């Protein structure tokens, strides 16, 4: 028999061991998230999935569901904090969506739309990280990386290749390629790798595939992020 907690007043059933985010997901309730992916262990870096549990904020991707919890998610207060976090991610990188091949298919952008983000608000960092075009089939633009580590986890845990890693400290933390040259072309990375498809933003891009999907038919043109399969927006 499954147990329950409440999420914004709605009763959610869960199996012991599930996180709040997993249980909400299974119940068809959207909680914004960027670094969580159902196939991998949670990472807890983006903090977009923050909810209030019994009055205290916590990451719903790492917090186990417990019977009788009172969870708040879709509130003005929490959405305002999520918006601020999204703005921080935008100013930390160079997110020029008008020329980004991921535009319309990007989870960061779609999350910003979902949260009604009209501006980047903070002063921009304008980082300068060199693009890696050494691989014949894939291009890396590190200036859009949100350090979600999905590519790291996919390459290590699924592909067994350990192609990517996070390196450095503080604002200098950045994604690196595990090759003595530091170049993707000098690894055994291929397009068939799981890591080639998990990036939620426009860092890991297939070459010669950009702008193939007409505007209006991209993922988030058709339905906003968080819209359920039934087509109803969260």
């Amino acid at each position, binding site marked *: 028999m499954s147990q329950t907690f409440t999420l914004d007043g709605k009763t959610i059933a869960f199996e012991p061991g599930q996180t709040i985010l997993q249980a909400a997901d299974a119940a068809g309730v959207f909680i914004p998230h960027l670094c969580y992916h159902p196939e991998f262990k949670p990472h807890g870096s983006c903090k977009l999935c923050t909810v209030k549990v019994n009055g205290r904020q916590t990451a719903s991707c790492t917090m186990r569901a417990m019977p009788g919890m009172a969870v708040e998610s879709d509130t003005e207060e929490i959405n305002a904090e999520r918006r601020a976090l999204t703005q921080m991610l935008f100013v930390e990188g160079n997110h020029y969506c008008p020329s980004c091949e991921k535009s319309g298919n990007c989870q960061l*952008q779609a999350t910003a*739309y979902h949260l*009604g983000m*009209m*501006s*980047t608000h903070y002063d921009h960092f304008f980082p300068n990280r060199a693009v890696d075009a050494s691989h014949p089939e894939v291009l890396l633009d590190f200036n859009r990386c949100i350090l979600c580590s999905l590519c790291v986890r996919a390459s290590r845990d699924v592909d067994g290749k350990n192609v990517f890693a996070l390196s450095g400290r503080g604002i200098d933390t950045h994604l690196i390629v595990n090759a003595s040259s530091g170049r993707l072309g000098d690894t055994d990375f291929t397009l068939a790798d799981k890591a080639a498809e998990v990036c939620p933003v426009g860092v890991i891009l297939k070459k010669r595939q950009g702008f193939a999907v007409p505007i209006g038919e991209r993922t988030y043109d058709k339905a906003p992020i968080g819209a359920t399969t039934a087509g109803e927006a969260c």
Partner: protein
Amino acid sequence: MNAPMNPRKLRITTTSLSGCFGCHMSFLDIDERLLELAALVEFDRSPITDIKHCSQHCDLALVEGGVCNAENVHVLRELRANAKILVAFGACAVNGGLPAQRNHLDVGQCLSQVYRTPDGSATAIPDDPELPLLLDKVYPVNEVVRVDYFLPGCPPSADTIWKFLTDLLTGRTPRIEHPLLKFD
């Protein structure tokens, strides 16, 4: 819109700083709704009028483009000083836009790269004082003056602009959501 009888017309000023005029074109894309708008507003300094300087007491300033040179700063400050509400209009005004992709380059090197003599042996960077100097970087509008509203999009669509303006003109807080909210 149901306009009250003989209301004072709102004064709108618009400018393009380091813009491409695309946001203004998208504004004109509201098509015949421009006539409806003309009944409610009058245009002050704008690329579509002949007024050289913004007059005092403008109600609304639409600023297209980021801030890339000294003249942009002067124009932006003039609009800010005279307009009650200043809007960062379009992606370049909001975050510098695609022109800000020069921000990791040295501006001197950019100029010497572009203004080489035909045989490439020397550079001839224009140095007439008439010309405004480039800033070290392209800045979003809100890093130079205070901004009241942001309207993203490259450009914002005509329907987005119309929704935004009609919200403002009827005294509502502008509210742009999916599918009108776009950054690209």
